[in-house]
């Protein structure tokens, strides 16, 4: 029995944290809101250089062959920085799907490019009717009629669907099946798609706890400096307790997320562990966003304050891949034995 990360895992986390602290301050996220594709100018290549994008890919394809326990902390960092890049879709979902699909020239080529960052992958699963960054991705991994397809960007018909988080460029996507390559179908595809949903759910949970951490830091910072009635508002218990409760919720969500990564890594107790992660992380991030908004008062209610960049990402991800109620319901099926415990969206 041991519940702690290794030095290696923490070292990778620290390297990514340091890079994002320097290269992805809130100003970069703000700029992404205004940019053509909702993304940053150069972070993609920096992530590729660090080995992040292909972390889950096999070594033979240029990856680091890492397990969810090795990468979960990185997703927490992506959330902490509100990184405006398709990391969840690319490294958290598409690369593991490709890795699990039977080898073929098409699959191998795109997987190799995914590791170097030459390819940017996004996904259209049944759980993601609105496809993130479909306009700037090079390839789409799509689920259709139980099969998994690889589609080149040029073959996609796109209709923008604006998100409240303007760095999340979403599209409804059409493509002609004749222009797509089948990667897996039928009995081969089903477990891969099922696992992809669990991975996406777990990594979105990790991003949410990272977002919550940053928002709480912002609340603490503001409450420590903002003065009313002649003293810092952080001295008032009403403000202190609000932030303490937000912190508590996130501190209990984080180990639950790590347990989810353990479950995925060892393929044990997956559905309940992943749903626990998403339920706690979603609720913690929403609670943090509301407490920190209230702590800021009117300035928090403006788009001039950076808080909204993190808050709106949290709103989006709290509902992505199932909200907390959906996941509690799925856990209920496991605990009360009254429905399918492996349901997916």
């Amino acid at each position: 029995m041991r519940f702690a990360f290794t030095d290696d895992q923490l070292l990778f986390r620290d390297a990514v944290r340091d890079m994002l602290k320097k290269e992805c301050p809130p100003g970069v996220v703000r700029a992404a809101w205004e940019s053509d594709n909702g993304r940053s100018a150069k972070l993609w290549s920096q992530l590729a250089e660090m080995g992040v994008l292909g972390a889950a890919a096999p070594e033979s394809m240029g990856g680091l062959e890492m397990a969810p326990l090795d990468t979960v902390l990185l997703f927490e960092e992506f959330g902490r920085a509100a990184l405006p890049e398709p990391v969840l879709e690319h490294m958290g979902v598409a690369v593991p799907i490709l890795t699990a699909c039977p080898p073929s020239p098409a699959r191998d080529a795109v997987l190799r490019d995914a590791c170097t960052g030459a390819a940017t992958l996004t996904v259209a699963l049944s759980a993601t009717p609105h496809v993130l960054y479909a306009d700037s991705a090079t390839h789409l991994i799509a689920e259709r009629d139980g099969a998994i397809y690889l589609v080149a960007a040029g073959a996609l018909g796109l209709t923008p669907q604006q998100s409240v988080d303007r760095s999340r460029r979403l599209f409804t996507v059409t493509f002609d099946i004749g222009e797509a390559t089948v990667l897996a179908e039928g009995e081969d595809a089903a477990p891969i798609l099922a696992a992809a949903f669990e991975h996406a759910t777990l990594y979105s949970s990790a991003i949410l706890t990272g977002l919550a951490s940053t928002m709480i830091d912002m609340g603490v910072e503001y409450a420590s400096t903002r003065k009313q009635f002649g003293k810092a508002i952080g001295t008032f218990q009403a403000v202190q307790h609000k932030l303490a409760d937000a912190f508590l919720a996130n501190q209990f969500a984080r180990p639950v997320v790590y347990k989810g990564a353990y479950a995925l890594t060892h393929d044990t107790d997956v559905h309940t562990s992943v749903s626990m992660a998403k339920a706690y992380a979603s609720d913690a991030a929403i609670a943090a966003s509301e407490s920190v908004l209230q702590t800021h008062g009117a300035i928090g209610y403006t788009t001039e304050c950076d808080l909204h960049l993190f808050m709106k990402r949290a709103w989006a991800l709290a509902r992505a891949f199932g909200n907390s109620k959906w996941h509690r319901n799925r856990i209920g099926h496991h605990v009360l034995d009254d429905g399918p415990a492996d349901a997916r969206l």
Partner: protein
Amino acid sequence: MSAADQRRACAKLKHVLVERPRRSNGPDQQVAGTGASRRTALRPHNDPGNTVDLNWSDSEERFRSEVRAWLAANVPTEPLPSGDSREGFAAHIEWEKKLFAAGYAAVSWPEEYGGRGSSLWEWLIFEEEYYRANAPNRVTQNGIFLLAPTLFEYGTDEQKRRILKPMAAAEVTWAQGWSEPNSGSDLASLQSRAVRVDGGWRLSGQKTWCTRGSFCDMVFGLFRSDPDAQRHSGLTYFMVPLDAEGVTVRAVERLDGDEGFAEVFFEDVFVPDTDIIGEVNNGWKVAMATASSERGLSLRSPGRFMATATRLIDLYRRSGCSDARIRDEVIRAWMDAQAYNITTLQTVTRMLDGQTITAESSLTKIFWSDMDVRTHKTALDILALSGELDEEAPAADSGGAWLKGYQFALAGPIYAGTNEIQRNVVATRVLGLPRK
């Protein structure tokens, strides 16, 4: 970190992660594989090595089996009367003696003091099995889990030899004496005093909310030994027999009707120097050193709440309740107990790695006490119209245990430092918000 340093760090990392020995035969192993491994997994992951490992060792599993078998054979089939009533206390002491004889009274203590030298993990397993078996509440709790950790850290060898074994054996029972009528959350304002005399001290004043004080043999608590010192300084930690000359005990009926509380009055009570723990005038530090263990792990281990959640699920299923909101609350209760367990595994790992758990134990205390209230409230909602029936009512479900449990749970956010005080601690000492 400069960009060049970063690249170097990453190169090193790649080396560490990629070059290290692994057990799998190669990246495409899983892809080429068939059957279960192929079907259930996306990834050809390496052995993650010395990372999160949530398996118990063979010897821990053996320990669990032994404990489970002993409890199955020995836990009273009929629940004992409340340990906070006079009649029930005596029955609970008999149970405690049985536990001690089997070596289960304080499993984590060294053998010389009546324990079995179990690891923290084994202690967690013991607790899980204990509550799973619905074994009686521990009326020795305040001694074993509150006083003993302080004695292990600050007690003299003579004190440890004299006090610990009779405590584990339930031959001498202990009540705590922290609060005073005018010192609750503001404990450091306490006024009960100790005056130096030949060979010891004379204590005067009043302590209150002493749990099971009307049945216990001894009380421990803080007294002001330096009248000129302010607040946290000038306090000393004393142990006092409740039948000493000058001690008067008055029982106070609790919310649930049991006389589980007591006020204790001290009039010039003599206490020898040998019954001081730690140094004179250093009592605050001595008491607080183990307070975080009280709020955190040892007072309320996860096994207790996992057992309560299991009983709630049982109740929900028996009830035939079809209210979707109640169903959601039942699921949440189960999840909260699991989440508390998961967090505890992280905490215990940190403790075994040599880290001290301090202010963050305040988070733990808020979590479990709020959870316990919610869980019992949900049970009473399921019981609906019979939720008000207490243990004497023939129609009460489970002998009124949920109502009794609810009333006990309501004390959780109050005792061991109110949750408001804990939130203050989290805000100022963990988050670093300004005090003034």
